[in-house]
């Protein structure tokens, strides 16, 4: 018989036995914990932006592990690995094992000495796991629990801490929100084998890693609560704005103390909560006074009353294009006309919303109505510039085509789809990105079409009421004609680079497939957006059609997803005032000069006291010196008055937050761009230079750079002229009366604070 037992190895048993003392002892611990796992996430390679497609490249993401990270039991709950806390270092595979005599949250401290898939880490990060995650993974405290530390485990911890959810609820909610299984959502991405789930987990990991890096910066810099919640009087601009400043006092002056606290603010940058999807429907050329309470627009009016309303939302200028440029990149670049400039208008790799979204691993679509069916090589390229032809023919207004006849008998003309109404196409580096064509999509608001579930849409305006010379049933009337034209001519695909099958309504298909982008900018054609037909109900029909499709979608009806719909107009009417990024009293200047900027976007020096347009330095770090030519702001764009901004969310529809609120603070397209950067986590409130273009011009920033921002010199109302996020933080001092623009509806509150200072974008109470 072969022995089952081996020769004993030399051991120190004897010594150990000898050292064992029969002492009276006490139980040292309440609950021990043994854990093992992986510190994992995503390695995101950002896009390369350039003005040419050849020099551009898209972003890429792969599953990754963090080697050399410090993992510890966070005994004091401050989100840091302090001396005395049980800790270890992750291996080259990101693996760790650790024990603690006391059950406590886990922290992975990823410093710049760690690596992400072997790549250097430029900004430190912290991942966490709540105690509940350890407990859920524990079969017996005496055995090792598998607890992976990932960006998503940190989001679960935050949900438990800040939303009061149980661990199971937090996991299920996160899994549902990003459309993966609860079993897989907390796996390190390197262990996710489901190929349909991995992209969603990677995307959320990239988003979360960006937010969590911000949180670490908040702590490292000692940012104050006031700065993080978007009180633009913090640290203090009282000396600059003694009239309107309500100061930075109390807790606003307190630096954020811990990583968990900072993370909460990183998901509420300047008080703006994270949204998963934002839809913007843009209308044309009407002011509050003409739209609100107008009987031909019952749906829009109901939308504005049911949702939340901004009473002092200013456009950028007149005509259309400056406003769309502003909505795309928080500047009008001196443009004072429609398409009166060579395409593309904005070159030189300038900051814009589209690139910022791409650079953060988020997605965007611009949906346009009545898009010309124009695969490369067809009639669509006739007359286009050589640049346009080389890029598939997207970059021009649709041609006239007499063979396409709408239901009202008109022929398809060039005044329908307008490039001037596309907020992305003018940014050369955005248009040069490989995914740009794929992001440019069609939308139909054709009257009588069904919602995403095939149910008929019941319109608010009576179908038999009629209105002037425009048939009310003609909303989206070109869609069926364009479809027929495409069918007749065998058009089955979009432009070069867009592999989607040709359809006049990619929007509905995207809603049905859950394939809409994080940010969706929806542009009706000029018959459906009030541009050609004014206050015709066809615009009301079109908007109702689109919004009810959104409201019938699965993403809208999923309470774990945060979805917002914005109804706004490019510009108002008649008034020539603007705010929030402009000093409307200031004439323009134009010159070339040398300007030096600091790492945080502040102007260090300039040759002469001329407007230093900082947009060329978006996202730069360190000191940058270059020469630029400032555009001529004297040629126009001093505003076109107050326009309309209505906001409705699925959280309102679900009853989680109230609607029917209003905000009378001053905002503009620039403010909206800043707000979107906060909502999507695209910028760092502590570094003004990370906000694109004029969206960085907060009251505080202007104050700090007042000597080299002469365009703001002489401002009679610095608060009015400065940009801020739409967070409703600012409270008008008692006795201070609002600026009221021509074309505006007088808000319920005109003096002093609003009766309810709630953030209109809130997603939870």
């Amino acid at each position, binding site marked *: 018989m072969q022995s089952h037992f081996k020769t004993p190895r030399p051991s*120190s*048993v004897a010594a150990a036995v000898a050292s064992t003392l029969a002492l009276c002892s006490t139980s040292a611990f309440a*609950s021990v914990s043994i854990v093992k796992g992986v510190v994992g996430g995503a390695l995101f390679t950002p896009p390369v932006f350039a003005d040419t497609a050849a020099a551009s490249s898209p972003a890429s993401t792969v599953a990754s592990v963090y080697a050399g990270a410090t993992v510890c039991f966070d005994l004091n709950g401050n989100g840091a690995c302090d*001396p005395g806390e049980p800790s270890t270092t992750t291996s080259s595979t990101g693996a760790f094992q650790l024990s603690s005599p006391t059950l406590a949250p886990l922290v992975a401290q990823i410093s710049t000495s760690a690596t992400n898939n072997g790549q250097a880490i430029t900004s430190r990060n912290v991942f966490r796991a709540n105690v509940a995650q350890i407990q859920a993974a524990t079969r017996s405290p005496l055995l090792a629990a598998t607890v992976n530390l990932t960006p998503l485990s940190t989001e679960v911890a935050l949900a438990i801490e800040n939303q009061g959810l149980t661990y199971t609820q937090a996991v299920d909610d996160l899994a549902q929100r990003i459309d993966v299984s609860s079993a897989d959502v907390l796996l390190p991405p390197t262990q996710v084998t489901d190929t349909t789930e991995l992209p969603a987990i990677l995307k959320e990991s990239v988003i979360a890693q960006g937010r969590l890096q911000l949180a670490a910066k908040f702590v490292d810099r000692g940012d104050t609560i006031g700065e993080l919640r978007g009180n633009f009087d913090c640290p203090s601009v009282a000396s600059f704005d003694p009239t309107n400043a309500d100061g930075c006092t109390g807790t606003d002056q307190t630096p954020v103390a811990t990583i968990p606290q900072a993370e909460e603010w990183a998901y509420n940058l300047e008080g703006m909560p994270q949204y998963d999807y934002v839809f913007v429907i843009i209308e044309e050329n009407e002011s509050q006074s003409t739209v609100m309470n107008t009987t031909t627009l019952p749906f829009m009016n109901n939308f504005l009353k049911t949702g939340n309303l901004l009473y002092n939302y200013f456009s950028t200028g007149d005509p259309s294009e400056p406003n769309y440029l502003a909505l795309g990149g928080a500047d009008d670049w001196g443009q004072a006309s429609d398409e009166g400039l060579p395409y593309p208008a904005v070159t030189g790799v300038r900051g814009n919303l589209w690139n910022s979204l791409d650079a953060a691993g988020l997605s965007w679509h611009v949906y346009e109505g009545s898009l010309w069916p124009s695969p490369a090589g067809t009639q669509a390229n006739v007359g286009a510039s050589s640049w346009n032809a080389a890029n598939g023919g997207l970059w021009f207004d649709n041609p006239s085509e007499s063979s396409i006849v709408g239901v009202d008998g008109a022929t398809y003309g060039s005044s329908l789809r307008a490039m001037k109404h596309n907020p992305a196409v003018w940014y050369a580096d955005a248009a040069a990105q490989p995914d740009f064509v794929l992001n440019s999509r069609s939308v139909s608001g054709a009257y009588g079409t069904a919602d995403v579930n095939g149910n008929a849409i019941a319109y608010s305006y009576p179908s038999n009421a009629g209105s002037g010379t425009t048939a009310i049933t003609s909303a989206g009337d070109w869609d069926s004609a364009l479809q027929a034209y495409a069918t007749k001519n065998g058009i089955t695909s979009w432009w070069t680079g867009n592999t989607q099958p040709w359809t006049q309504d990619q929007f509905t298909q995207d809603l049905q497939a859950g394939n809409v982008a994080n940010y969706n900018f929806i542009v009706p054609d000029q018959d459906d957006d009030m541009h050609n037909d004014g206050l015709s109900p066809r615009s009301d029909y079109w908007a109702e059609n689109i919004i009810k499709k959104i409201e019938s979608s699965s993403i809208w009806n999923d309470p774990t997803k945060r979805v917002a719909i914005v109804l706004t107009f490019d510009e108002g009417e008649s008034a020539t005032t603007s705010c929030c990024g402009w000093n409307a009293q200031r004439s323009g200047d134009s010159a070339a000069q040398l300007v030096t900027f600091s790492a945080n976007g502040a102007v260090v020096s300039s040759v002469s006291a001329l407007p230093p347009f900082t947009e060329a330095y978006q996202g730069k770090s360190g000191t940058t010196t270059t020469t630029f030519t400032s555009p001529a702001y004297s040629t126009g764009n001093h505003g076109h008055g107050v326009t309309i901004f209505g906001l409705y969310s699925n959280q309102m529809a679900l009853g989680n937050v109230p609607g029917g609120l209003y905000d009378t603070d001053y905002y503009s397209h620039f403010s909206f761009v800043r707000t979107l950067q906060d909502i999507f986590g695209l910028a760092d409130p502590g570094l003004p230079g990370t906000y694109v273009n004029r969206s960085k011009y907060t009251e505080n920033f202007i104050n700090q750079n007042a000597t080299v921002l002469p365009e703001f010199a002489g401002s009679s109302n610095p608060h009015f002229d400065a940009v801020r996020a739409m967070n409703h933080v600012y409270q008008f001092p008692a006795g201070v009366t609002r600026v009221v623009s021509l074309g505006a509806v007088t808000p319920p509150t005109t003096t002093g604070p609003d009766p309810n200072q709630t953030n209109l974008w809130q997603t939870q109470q």
Partner: protein
Amino acid sequence: MKFLVNAAVVAAALGASAAASAGTFDFSYSFADGQEVTGSFSGITTNGGQSVTDISDIQVALNGIAFAPVTTGGVTYGNATLQANTWNPGQVAFDDTTPVTVYADGALNNFVFSDVDAATNTSPDYEFAYINDSTNDIYEAVAANFLQSDSFSTAEGNATQLALDSPGVAGSWSLTEVAPVPVPGALPLLVSGLGLFGFTRRRAA
């Protein structure tokens, strides 16, 4: 020093005494990362020499550091006496009703040695668990000495004493009988067995 299998041969030769051979046993488990648990206990061989029951006098060390009480700040932590508990797959927990059996084949082991009754106390000061639970798909070897963790006693300068193999590796397990001793209950059988052995030998001679 004798291997338990030799005792089994003897016991078999002695007839009824084969099921009740007591002894002292050394064990060790080498973790994949090079750490090692060593120790000893007393017990009685069973199952034809394949296993040991009636475990007592347990001594364990992890990386040469004994599972032993530590006094700090005038307070002594840890129990000097180690206990054994069986892993119960049905309960997915350690229990204190199922007799502990330690197997020569590591892949059969389901026990923990610690300074507490692991069925009722989930906060040991030190432990060595070796689990092979096909029902719940738990295969682990765990050794931990919480009294040597850096959070407990930084003055000692020890890193956390923790070793994990998941799954445990049977080939890294060694169990050796070092000193077989008669147990009181087995003595009559042993005497009768020896008598029978002597009678047989005499007849053979």
